[in-house]
């Protein structure tokens, strides 16, 4: 980008550099690991292009300082983001400020670049985005059939139960205790008793979750009529008869000061993360990882969340998932593979990023010349379609029923006597509408608001409102009410017609409310990523939707076959989910002021252009 444009650019990136970035980042070196991406990238670019002005922001693009006025100073915004949430946010700010957006994403050999200009092309949210995969709770708790189910169980239930926030709801024992009369008793099982030996505690947990719980589940014969019965696994089966007692030895191995370097693999002498562990090895890793958490990282227990860069957490989850997989006759996986599934890791190579970065610049140049007719969405494919490896497609027109770029009212079916304002805020306003600083109004009455500048009594008022059911709010919300929901930072405002409904289907409508008129997320089941990547883990997500830091963005890819049949712009386009990232071009923006102020610079920019006959000055 920089060698082409003699303009000033602004980079916003909240991330710091990690070792796993180095395989595709020519701006970063080993010695930069841990530093701000935005700052290091700036320094690297200045080395070969000293005359460019770059302002780095080591910050989250969702921070309030990057408001509509901030965005208005740019001619174009280039997204190289790695998550849906930030993409939606930037899309809204670009719409509100009228600044064109060049959006991009890659995964493995696949990538895409799209252009979004208000009123001229569809916005980023005009078309449904594939939703992260979710699984029915009972599949996870009782009847797993795939390794990913075991991973979700190990990560979101067992790990969360043992090391996470104790107050959080947890379905770990949901089904297994149904058949058991002693549900009170099982609650205590996970508590580490004050005088209990950690080794002993680990074995007790092991026997409970892999042995006892499976036996309890087996009592419910109805469940297993058409399924293979699981096999309970106890420590006495999985491990040699006597406990491993050389604690002294193991402690020596891991007796370093830094708790983040604690590793069960290291203390057990397991080296290769690609190896498949036997049941015994998995059991040893499980007990050792659990032991190390209590011995070396006790302070963090009760507040830990799974993090793919936390070695010990990955070890624990891998071993637990493998032991569970053994019970259910599911093939085991290596730590490397398990980490990819649990961490939702995006496959990324330098070549695709280079291609997409080049395409981003091409589109940005067209935007700067206002060459609207030439705008293209371009897909980078792994297998050619109609001889094309890089496939340009004309951008679609704005979707008239898009709740983001048009003013279509939404309808929400909800039980106004049972649902609380909190449910509405969390499940609809935040999760579905993607607002981060929402304001909710009923006529002129403010029901809820977020912000730093609120008075204490307001904060208390809103907090109280959150726990009230809709129909009992100070300004009651019932069937026929029209709510206005607004995000002041995103300058997005929607109207929602409330319809009261008494009952909801627990499996099909787990939110207990249904939003319509909103472009819903597609189920990932329909996706066609399988032949494009080595792993199906890509399309998989976990029960609770928890964003990881460098993963999980969705891209929509028009099915090449459909396009080749000449049926462009049909709503039947199949979408392909893919995680994506273009980190080398993260959030770069060109500033308008510079272009306007300096004629010679805008000349330089137009030079080397695609078509000498079509040269147009900026403006």
């Amino acid at each position: 980008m920089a060698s082409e444009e003699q303009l000033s650019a602004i980079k916003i990136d909240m991330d710091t550099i990690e070792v796993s970035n180095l395989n595709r980042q020519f701006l970063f070196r080993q010695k930069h690991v841990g530093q701000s991406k935005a700052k290091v990238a700036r320094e690297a670019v200045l080395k070969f292009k000293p005359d460019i002005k770059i302002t780095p922001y080591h910050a989250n693009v969702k921070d309030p300082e990057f408001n509509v006025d901030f965005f208005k100073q740019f001619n174009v915004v280039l997204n190289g983001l790695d998550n849906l949430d930030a993409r939606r946010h930037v899309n809204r700010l670009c719409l509100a400020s009228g600044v064109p957006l060049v959006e991009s994403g890659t995964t493995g050999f696949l990538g895409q670049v799209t252009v979004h200009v208000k009123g001229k092309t569809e916005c980023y949210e005009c078309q449904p985005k594939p939703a992260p995969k979710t699984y029915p709770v009972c599949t996870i708790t009782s009847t797993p059939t795939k390794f990913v189910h075991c991973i979700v169980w190990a990560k979101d239930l067992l790990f969360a139960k043992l090391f996470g926030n104790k107050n959080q709801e947890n379905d770990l024992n949901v089904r297994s205790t149904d058949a058991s009369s002693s549900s009170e008793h099982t609650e205590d099982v996970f508590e580490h008793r004050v005088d209990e030996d950690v080794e002993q505690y680990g074995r007790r947990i092991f026997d409970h979750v892999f042995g006892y719980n499976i036996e309890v589940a087996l009592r419910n014969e109805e469940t297993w009529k058409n399924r293979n019965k699981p096999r309970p696994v106890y420590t006495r089966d999985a491990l040699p008869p006597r406990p491993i007692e050389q604690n002294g030895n193991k402690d020596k191995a891991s007796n370093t000061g830094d708790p983040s370097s604690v590793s069960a693999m290291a203390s057990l002498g397991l080296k290769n993360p690609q190896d498949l562990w036997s049941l015994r090895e998995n059991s040893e890793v499980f007990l050792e990882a659990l032991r190390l958490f209590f011995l070396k990282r006790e302070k963090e227990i009760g507040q830990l969340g799974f993090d793919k860069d936390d070695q010990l957490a990955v070890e624990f989850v891998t071993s637990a998932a493998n032991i569970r997989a053994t019970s259910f006759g599911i093939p085991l996986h290596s730590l490397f593979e398990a980490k990819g599934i649990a961490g939702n890791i995006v496959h990324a190579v330098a070549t695709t990023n280079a291609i997409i970065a080049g395409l981003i610049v091409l589109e940005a140049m067209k935007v700067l010349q206002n060459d609207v007719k030439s705008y293209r969405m371009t897909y980078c494919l792994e297998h050619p379609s109609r001889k094309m490896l890089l496939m340009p497609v004309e951008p679609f027109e704005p979707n008239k029923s898009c709740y983001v770029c048009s003013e279509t009212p939404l309808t929400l079916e909800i039980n106004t006597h049972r649902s609380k304002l909190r449910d509405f805020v969390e499940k609809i306003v935040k999760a579905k509408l993607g607002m981060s600083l929402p304001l909710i109004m009923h006529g002129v009455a403010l029901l809820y608001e977020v912000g730093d500048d609120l008075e204490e009594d307001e904060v208390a008022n809103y907090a109280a409102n959150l726990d009230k059911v809709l129909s009992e709010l100070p300004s009651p919300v019932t069937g026929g009410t029209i709510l206005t929901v607004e995000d002041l930072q995103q300058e997005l405002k929607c109207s929602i017609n409330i319809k009261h409904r008494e009952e909801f289907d627990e499996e099909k409508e787990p939110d207990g409310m249904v939003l319509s008129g909103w472009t819903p997320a597609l189920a990932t089941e329909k996706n066609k990523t399988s032949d494009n990547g080595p792993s199906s883990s890509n399309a998989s997500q976990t029960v609770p939707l928890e964003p990881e830091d460098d993963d999980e963005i969705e891209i929509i890819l028009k099915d090449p076959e459909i396009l080749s049949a000449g049926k462009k712009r049909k709503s039947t386009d199949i979408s392909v989910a893919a995680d994506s990232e273009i980190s080398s071009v993260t959030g770069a923006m060109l500033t308008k002021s510079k272009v306007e102020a300096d004629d010679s610079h805008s000349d330089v920019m137009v030079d080397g252009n695609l078509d000498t006959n079509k040269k147009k000055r900026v403006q």
Partner: protein
Amino acid sequence: MGKEGEELTEQETAIYDRQIRVWGVDAQRRLSKSHIFVSGLKGTVIEFCKNIVLAGVGSLMLNDDRLVTEELLSANFLVPSDENVTRGKSLAELCCESLKDFNPMVSVSVEKGDLANFDVEFFQKFDAVVISCCSLLTKKSVNAKCRKSPRRVAFYSVECRDSCGEIFVDLQNYSYSKKKNEETIECQLQYLSFEEAIAVPWRSLPRRTSKLYFAMRVIERFEELEKRNPQDVSAGDLPNVLKLRKELCEAQCMNESQIPDLLLQRLLAARVEFPPVCAIIGGVLGQEVIKAISGKGDPLKNFFLFDAMDGKGIIEDISNINN
């Protein structure tokens, strides 16, 4: 593909984590043992070098004795913009220093000399040879030398002119396995040499063959006839190029409209490289070399053509129909 050689080190596993998830450990291991040669270090080849050094090839040898000029650096992010650093050093030497810094696990070196003078023994040390900015004659002869090597040397040539780019691939007889519907199938591909490919009669090619393919042949032939240095053409050459187009089209029984004036004009006029196109072509080329070395994925056969004007990146199989 059985396991071969030693395991990847912990450091390799950590740095290459995201790409091992794309092509697997075996492919990464093969990559780390491969030797690549490049000649003609302009923007596209620079992009290519960056990509394969980051990906972790075993070694990369650079050949380009030219001294640095402003024009040569227009799309080169490897060379610092500081005359005190660049003075008296060849392009290859300067690029070598930067590339080493990109990935200390890759051995990067410089080979001085004229590309045309390297012999079969020289080329047979490499798994892949990538050349650019050289005459048609040199292109043909290097390709022929690679073919004479007792072990297969994958040959690639790449040219960017204006906002257009072309990659040529010769993998000779190439067999690889791929997965289709859970089954692993063996595939075989037969490639033509560059000389053979461009000799395929135009009228025997499919009607919708990319216009850029023909235009590149006209310019390439023009440079050869006029004994020009590679890419030493300008807008002033257009009348003579149009004359040559007429002759070639008549000889090949093809309508001249298959090679539009405007396209030729663009290809001739470009003095400065166009970095986004370098990034795109260098990216595709990097991917192809990685595919050929790792034996994973369908390799490109045998031309790739990209024109930023329409944004299409097209694969053309230029072979004899009987083949």
